[in-house]
């Protein structure tokens, strides 16, 4: 069963019960290069394996870019 989440501002369907690690693998994103926030709270890297995403979650995946 797919579930709907909001990922970086866009509505997406993800497999039900996917973890943060699972999501990053699914997206082909290297975990070391990003930070993840779920429902306005940072999920630290040590919790990627354990943290399961739920329907309606708002997920932000960010990285460093150039800035002043």
């Amino acid at each position: 069963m797919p579930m709907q989440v909001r990922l970086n501002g866009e509505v997406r369907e993800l497999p039900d019960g996917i973890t943060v690690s699972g999501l990053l693998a699914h997206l082909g994103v290297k975990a070391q290069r990003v930070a993840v926030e779920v429902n306005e709270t940072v999920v630290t890297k040590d919790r990627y394996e354990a943290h399961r995403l739920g329907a309606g979650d708002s997920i932000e995946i960010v990285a460093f870019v150039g800035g002043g």
Partner: protein
Amino acid sequence: MADTWSIGKYTFTSRLLVGTGKFPDFPTMQKAHVASGAEVVTVAVRRLDLSAKGEASLLEWIPKGMTLLPNTAACFTADEAVRTARLGRELGMGDLVKLEVIGDPRTLFPDVVGLVEAAKVLVKEGFTVLPYTNDDPVTAKRLEDAGCAAIMPLGAPIGSGLGLRNPYNLRIIMETAKVPVLVDAGVGTASDAAIAMELGAVAVLMNTAIAGAKDPVLMAAAMRDAVSAGRQAFLAGRIPMKLHAAASSPLTGLIGS
């Protein structure tokens, strides 16, 4: 003894802090960073472009050993800035944050009410907070009281290159604050950086003045020298200004007298 300066638990020798935005390309940025001699470099936190695969990472182009200073640029509320700072800490594994809460899109002037509010939250969470603020001594005091590790008043609007528009206020802040005062934003060319240091700034932070120059690498070297010259002039103590001449050569012993 080396002329160092400290913020929180960090100690630096270079008094020039540089940015990573708006460079023509990463190799030029890297060369400019090396030429600048800077030890601290700002970075921004943004949503990862999920459609772009295998893009070059900014971090791979920042010279090893430089300390990352994540910013909260383009945050318009204290809440956004706090969330961005937390994500920056998670990304960079350091507790430094250049705190920006912007109040107006056209001037990018800080929302000082939101800034103080965000600073209080982040200080409580153990961040070493460097707030980008207006050239207002009262706000500077509020930020210091909130526990900020430094105060970073603007010289002029971000990216404007207008130089130091209110050197008198900046000097008041520098004379009053007990934490380091860094001039952040507004520098256009080397003399602006030197003036900031002559006024007594502990350091100068700039991005566009280097990245946007015709030759960013050469400008980075110019800024390094200007910051160093300005610092030395400040330590040396300039002469007072006088309206009339004071001769440097003896006025006696002239021939034919």
